[in-house]
């Protein structure tokens, strides 16, 4: 008994020492310096670099959770994400691509979090808005547009910047459009209907190559335009970095997405604390009570849909431009589930949680699973009984499915839960039996078997 108590307090003491006070500053700086040094001196893609890269990202989490001065925290994270990581990216293109992907998914997950986490509306077709944004830029920036009407010509690549805003608006428009018919539905119906709508968008993208070729069908749109490198001269001549166009584009998209993610975090954080955010929370907890409090239910739900969808629309534009190629399978249900599992893993409604979940799932997808696949392949060659056709990178459904089930059973509030959401979920946990929770008999409301 005493040993456990002292070991706990020892752990607590170490934790306090490392995350607060002068020793905390020293530890963080040392940690950052060691990680950065390791990354910059050994930029090859291998397991060691993977581990250091994960530790590097973990530092951001540690800094966030520590009790240090806000200015110091911001400065350290800024140096790491805006200086060390991009420089590392010029040495090894793989990792900065992982970081960029993570950024895209952070923005998407934060958008979905507005709908699912804040307003409590389970949207399984979220990727549809992402697809709308991506196809918007894909069609308008390539010769695809001339197939629709020969008189039209593609927009110049510089229009990429305004198109991020147009993507935002189009996403919001589609969010309202798809939100309107489903507003009256209860949670579980809404989930299925949004899933159906997501499939409809995908089927349309797959089949709208006839009678007029709008989306180029299953072949997708290739050679999507990237914005011109207006800063290339500055980087090459003034800073003296001789980077190739490819590297410059990587840097550009990394910084663009970093900036967008920052904006999204600020917007979502402000929304959460505002009247609107509190209205969403009230709707989530109890719709009837929310109406009784005078909350405009329809407007608030539509707003949640629009805000979530607009982020996805804007990210779609950026994504299409970064990937250069989009096709309908990019936007299938699995992608929606993928984003949903980020939100659920991190904690519905919790902004740091969702960011954490998005980074974790992206790392799992792009780094950890391929590594495990390599290990398995080696084990297979060594003669261990592993089925030949088993490649973990191809079994994402299994992984995300298990993740969803286990999270729902053991930790529905997520890894880094939102305080109020946690209370809501635990309040229900305390009811011992399903019967307690079952409905009150009411002659008007029987949904029995007939």
């Amino acid at each position, binding site marked *: 008994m005493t040993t456990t108590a002292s070991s706990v307090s020892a752990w607590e003491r170490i934790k306090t020492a490392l995350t607060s006070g002068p020793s905390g500053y020293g530890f963080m700086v040392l940690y950052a310096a060691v990680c950065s040094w390791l990354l910059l001196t050994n930029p090859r893609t291998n397991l060691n670099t993977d581990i250091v890269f994960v530790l590097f990202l973990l530092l951001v989490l540690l800094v966030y959770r520590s009790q240090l001065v806000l200015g110091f925290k911001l400065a350290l994270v800024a140096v790491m994400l805006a200086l060390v990581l991009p420089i590392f990216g010029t040495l090894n293109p793989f990792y900065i691509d992982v970081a960029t992907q993570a950024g895209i998914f952070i923005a998407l997950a934060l958008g979905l979090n507005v709908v699912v986490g804040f307003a*409590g509306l389970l949207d399984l077709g979220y990727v549809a808005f992402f697809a709308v944004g991506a196809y918007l830029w894909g069609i308008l920036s390539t010769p695809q547009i001339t197939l629709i009407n020969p008189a039209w010509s593609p927009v110049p690549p510089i229009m990429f910047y305004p198109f991020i805003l147009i993507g935002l608006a189009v996403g919001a428009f589609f969010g309202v459009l798809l939100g309107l018919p489903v507003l009256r539905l209860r949670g579980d119906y809404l989930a299925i209907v949004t899933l159906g709508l997501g499939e409809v968008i995908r089927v349309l993208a797959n089949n709208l190559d006839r009678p007029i070729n709008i989306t180029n069908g299953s072949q997708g749109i290739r050679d999507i335009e990237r914005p011109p490198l207006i800063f290339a001269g500055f980087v090459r001549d003034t800073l003296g970095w001789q980077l190739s166009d490819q590297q410059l584009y990587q840097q550009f998209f990394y910084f663009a997405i970093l900036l967008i993610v920052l904006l999204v975090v600020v917007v979502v954080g402000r929304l959460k604390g505002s009247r609107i955010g509190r209205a969403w929370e009230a709707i989530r907890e109890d719709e009837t009570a929310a109406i009784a409090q005078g909350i405009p239910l329809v407007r608030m739900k539509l707003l949640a849909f629009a805000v979530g969808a607009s982020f996805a629309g804007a990210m779609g534009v950026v994504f299409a431009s970064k990937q250069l190629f989009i096709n309908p399978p990019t936007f299938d249900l699995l992608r929606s589930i993928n984003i949903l599992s980020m939100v659920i893993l991190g904690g519905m409604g919790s902004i740091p949680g969702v960011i954490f979940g998005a980074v974790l799932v992206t790392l799992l997808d792009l780094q950890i699973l391929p590594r495990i696949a390599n290990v398995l392949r080696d084990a297979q060659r060594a003669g261990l009984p592993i089925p030949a056709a088993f490649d973990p990178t191809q079994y994402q459904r299994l992984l995300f499915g298990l993740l969803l089930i286990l999270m*729902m*059973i053991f930790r529905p509030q997520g890894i880094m839960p939102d305080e109020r959401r946690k209370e809501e979920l635990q309040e229900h946990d305390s009811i011992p039996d399903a019967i307690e929770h079952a*409905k009150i008999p009411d002659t008007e409301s*029987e*949904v029995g*078997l007939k």
Partner: protein
Amino acid sequence: MAAEVKAQASSSSGQRSFTEVLRTVFGPVGQLILFIVGSALALSLVVVLLALLQIGARPDILTRALTILPQVIIDGLVRGFLFASIALGYTMVYGVLEFINFAHGEIFMVGGVVGAAVSLFLASSGLLAGMPGLLFVILVIAVGMVVSGALAVTVERVAYRPLRGAPRLVPLISAIGVSLVLQDLMRLMMTNTPLGFNARFNTPDFGPPIRLFEMNLGARPVPVILPPKALIFIVASVLMLIALNYLVNATRLGKAIRATAQDMPTASLMGINVNQIVALTFLIGGALGGAAGALFGLNVGTVNPYMGFIPGLKAFTAAVLGGIGNITGAMVGGVVLGFLEAFVASYLSLFTNGAFSGAAYADIAAFSILILILIFRPSGLLGEATTQKV
């Protein structure tokens, strides 16, 4: 005292006359036939009208439309009974737990895969060629029912029961997880066995297609044929639906299910083991889904681990269309949706002169119906108006 009550109860259920039982069992079947005939007639009428509208520009369109009409109706029936048998699983679980069992499409898929495994085993052991068709069908359906039913009960026990008191979205998300896990587990098993990803569903020879009658349209008579596999599908599903109706409407067990669906706490106060009934509901729904999967595989010829998803969604649409929680409604909804889809799939391309491919837009038609029904008549075709519980 207790024995007396029991005796009274059994005598009161024994008092039910035979004709009354017949009525409760076959009444819904009559309703079903009414909807089959009604929707087939209505949709045929729409087709004829559309053809007449275009006849000025394309004189042969009416003949072409009428030529394929009987085949489209048969196709619609097969699709309809497919959706109906899957929809029953959704609707029964929803009736009892008010929970959308998202993984039900995968239960259906497992039935098909198990059927394919049985057929592969029979084919490789050389038994298949000499086997009577009827025995094969019964065997495949039985194995599909057992495996899928057991799987459904296991899923309920592992992934849903621990969450029964939680907010609504929690079990739904868990169910989505189960659906994904089952898809990939099945894929893992199939790709590492001789089945392969696209497993062939071997069947004995069921004989030549049945020629029903010939239509005299234009130059030469058009035969109307019924493929034996479609016939098997329709007959087997009708038998299953009748059996289910009997179970739910005319037995003590069925009464317990209905009582649990109506009011779970009160049912448990009346001495019904609610957990058992819930498990039973999953068993019945799963078995029906498994049988539908085996029949579907038999009819189509191949199965794959992702084949359950879209039929599952459409069957859910069918359940909502008929009025979720309502067993007859699920059958009616399935049949109506099946007809609608078959008509869209066959005629869209004809009436738009090939501009739109019908097969792709049939999916969109199904989801549009789901949305329209939920907006304008959320209680479904046969459902009663319900108020939302607070």
